């Protein structure tokens, strides 16, 4: 057992020092009839070779995004990650460190958290950001709870164009917290009409789940006039490089999925939630915060701060029960963002946008296919003749991963049956687009 350093002799000597005759003497508080006589019925230890073989066999059953023309988005995006990012996050001192409770020997973590907070505030156009949430969807549910704390109201109004998984995550937590969630019709524009002074917050996504980009300024004014908060969700962080940020449209809380910047797809997690707000709401914010201070010699240093909001001090009065963050994913984000800089981010965003336009043009030429969006960033929705899920399945059989059928996100919704949400990023080539258009033509 290669991970266990003690030898049988060591164990004997240690038991002698402790003054017990065998290991079970140390488990004496366990009721005797509950102590297992032997190990549970599972396989015995395996060598590295055997583990690689076993897990490798599972892995090859899956089709990796990089191995095919790939256009799947809807909340997670296939982007290129520079080799430097993965190398650096595997530095032992980052990978194997804990939450920075001892700041004197955790300045590496604390400084990148501070850099991350600065990057997120700048990207979203907000005043302050926390040191991350688990992901965008759980961040969104925390934002709704925060709006309830700020406004002392318990009703959230949610756009039907918010990613349904985000909506369901908010609904679950809110329902158990005895809060109310009202969902405004999908693809409708009647959100503003439902705002009144019982609403704590309005949650919208931009670009929305169908890819449409909207100006939220007028909505923000209506929300604020009713004394509520505007929560803006962004699932594609690369869009910050080209789309007017939520902070410039009047958002009070911005929640985003940061996976696009530095974090691999990984079948849905771990990802990293970005969370930013206005300074006046700082003390109602959930999650960890890194702050600047000085040490005993007056040198600049960083610590975790404002922890009186947190559960290890406030217990049942904490702003949230979130304890750890997505530290390592934060690091990946911060490194990738540092490599990009605003110049690189903007260029990357424009390449994404240009590729999406080229794809929309190509797919729009396929007989029977209609691109539904007026505006979009790197994702848009097409209507196909017939069942979108069938079409996506047939495309997969031809080796093209062609998008997400809207019916997968909105099950049972007849209006969505013929819609496919299609994403295109910098990894797509002219050949990929041509292959997609040709395959689509063939399966329709």
């Amino acid at each position, binding site marked *: 057992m290669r*991970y*266990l350093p*003690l030898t049988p002799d060591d164990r004997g000597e240690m038991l002698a020092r*402790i003054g017990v005759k065998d290991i079970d003497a140390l488990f004496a508080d366990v009721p005797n009839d509950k102590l*297992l006589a032997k190990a*549970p019925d*599972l*396989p015995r230890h395996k060598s590295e070779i055997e*583990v690689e073989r076993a897990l490798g066999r599972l892995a090859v*059953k*899956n*089709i*990796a*995004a*990089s191995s095919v023309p*790939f256009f*799947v988005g809807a*909340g997670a995006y*296939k982007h290129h990650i520079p080799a430097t990012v993965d190398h*650096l*996050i595997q530095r032992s*001192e*980052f990978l*194997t*460190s*804990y939450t920075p409770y*001892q*700041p004197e*020997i*955790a300045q590496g*973590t604390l400084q990148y958290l501070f850099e991350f907070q600065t990057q997120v505030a700048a990207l979203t156009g907000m005043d*302050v950001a926390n040191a991350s949430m688990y992901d965008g969807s*759980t961040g969104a549910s925390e934002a709704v709870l925060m709006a309830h704390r700020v406004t002392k109201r318990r009703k959230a109004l949610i756009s039907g164009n918010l990613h349904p998984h*985000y909506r369901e*995550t908010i609904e679950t*937590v809110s329902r158990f*917290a005895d809060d109310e969630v009202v969902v405004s019709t999908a693809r409708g524009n009647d959100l503003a009409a439902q705002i009144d002074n019982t609403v704590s917050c309005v949650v919208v996504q931009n670009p929305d789940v169908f890819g449409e980009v909207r100006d939220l300024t007028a909505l923000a004014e209506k929300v604020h006039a009713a004394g509520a908060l505007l929560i803006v969700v962004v699932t594609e962080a690369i869009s910050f490089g080209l789309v007017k940020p939520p902070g410039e449209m009047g958002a009070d809380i911005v929640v985003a999925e940061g996976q696009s910047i530095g974090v*691999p*797809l990984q*079948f*849905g997690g*771990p990802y990293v939630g970005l969370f930013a707000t206005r300074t006046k709401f700082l003390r109602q914010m959930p999650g960890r915060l890194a702050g600047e201070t000085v040490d*005993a010699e007056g*040198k600049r240093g960083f*610590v975790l*701060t404002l922890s009186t909001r947190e559960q290890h001090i406030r217990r049942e009065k904490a702003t949230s029960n979130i*304890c*750890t963050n997505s530290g390592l994913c*934060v690091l990946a984000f911060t490194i990738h963002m540092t490599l*990009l*800089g*605003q110049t690189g981010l903007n260029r990357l965003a*424009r390449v994404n946008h*240009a590729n*999406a336009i080229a794809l929309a043009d190509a797919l729009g030429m396929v007989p029977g296919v209609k691109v539904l969006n007026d*505006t*979009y960033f790197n994702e848009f929705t097409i209507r196909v003749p017939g069942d979108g899920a069938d079409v996506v*399945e047939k495309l*997969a059989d031809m080796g093209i991963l062609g998008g997400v059928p809207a019916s997968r996100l909105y099950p*049972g919704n007849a209006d969505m049956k013929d819609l496919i949400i299609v994403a295109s990023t910098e990894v797509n080539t002219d050949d990929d687009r041509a292959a997609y258009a040709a395959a689509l033509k063939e399966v329709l």
Partner: protein
Amino acid sequence: MLNRQGRPSASGDAGAVDHPTFTGNRALQVEEALIFEIGRHEVTGVDIDEPKDFKSKLGALERTGDIGLPGLSEPETMRHFVRLSQKNYGIDTGLFPLGSCTMKHNPRLNEKMARLPGIGDIHPLQPLSTVPGAIELIGELGRWLCELTGMPAVAMTPKAGAHGELCGMMAIKAAIEARGEKRSIVLVPESAHGTNPATAALIGYQVVSVPAREDGTVDPEEVKKRLSPDVAAIMLTNPNTCGLFERDVVAIADAVHAAGAFFYADGANFNAIVGKVRPGDLGVDAMHINLHKTFSTPHGGGGPGAGPVVLSKALAPFAPVPFVVVEDGNARLVENTSDAGDAQPLGRMCAFHGQMGMYIRAMSYMLSHGTDGMRQASEDAVLNANYIRASLTDLMSLPFGNRACMHEALFDDTWLDGTGVTTLDFAKAMIDEGYHPMTMYFPLVVHGAMLIEPTESESKASLDLFIAALRDLALSAKRGETDRFSGAPYHAPRRRLDETRAARSPILKWTPPKPVQEAAE
């Protein structure tokens, strides 16, 4: 000071002559500026071609103006982050005895497995027909977790321990509602992790605390006194945060069940009993498992974690979507409540299917250890903790007497009385000795608590050196050598940091310095 051979080494006098340097650097210890201070707006470390004939389909919603994010070239980025890493302590740096946090060896095989293209590079919403291996993996990990805990079902999606607590407590609330009842109270021992009361409060429960008895464990009589038809659940950590096994756990479970309430177990310390005791056999209804703690996935400066929750038969129907069902050896993903059949999912905890990247690491670790290795790991973790307890008990004080502990040894600060040294000072002096301090001031029920968890990763030699270092520090404190403590750490990248100042006037992001002219006004 003692060296590796246990002999005194040359003078470790902290007051060595100081030679200030021009840069503020000290050889390998480099002062590293923020990226915002060394980057430039026009620099990028990624080669991306300008798109040809760029046109916009953004309406009039293009971002204009400066974002305020400088870039660094690739070599500058590399150097910046490597230098930052050198200011961090990790388990690969040395012993990391953070009680309740469980810092054990992170095998690199796990990292290699997580990066297989068929694992790391698959999208949660690509057609299910293209990811059968991923679904199989989730099913298989779930089976292992059920087998190890003696529980019939598992909810895989929670993204961290605290998220798992939320899931488990929501399942309990859902089950109580499903039988047409409403209960408003959750019992939580005073020694519990802060996440427990925070979780209960988050979903609308009133928290009633249960005191510990003299020996540091929960008295079933105290639980019974607080039980009523209004109690929904008890949240109990076992082994508890004092490092002790709750020896009356079965009586507590029975009393809770007799009152129609549920038993939520905080699985943070499951690593002490894997392969030795099954929570299901103790009467547990729900327990989250911190995969990162128990089955070793990297903590990465505070996450990502993963918090699957095992569930009893009564709670199983309420597991959130999505979940994997295994029938006749075939794994199938149920994504929506409408497809859940007889089950009554409590809803969805997060977008997508949970922490796949952590599942694979945990599975890699579990396969490597096997059932025999996991049992041995628990025994070694407990042995190591007791070895530390037994080796320090003549110098340091134990709050609950000198009795066997589980995987962590808990000391209090009574032994420091009159020395002028506090728990915090002692911890900071450990930094100078090259160790990460133990968990301090937790559990809250013990004054000046010092919770030491060596884990199974440490060899006897490593423990002996650690013990020798702690003994030297303890004797030094008792001799009244307060300078060694009050000014510590002397040798860390930073001396003691002013946390009060950080909280009083928070600076949470970098802002450009004011131009000289403006600053003068």
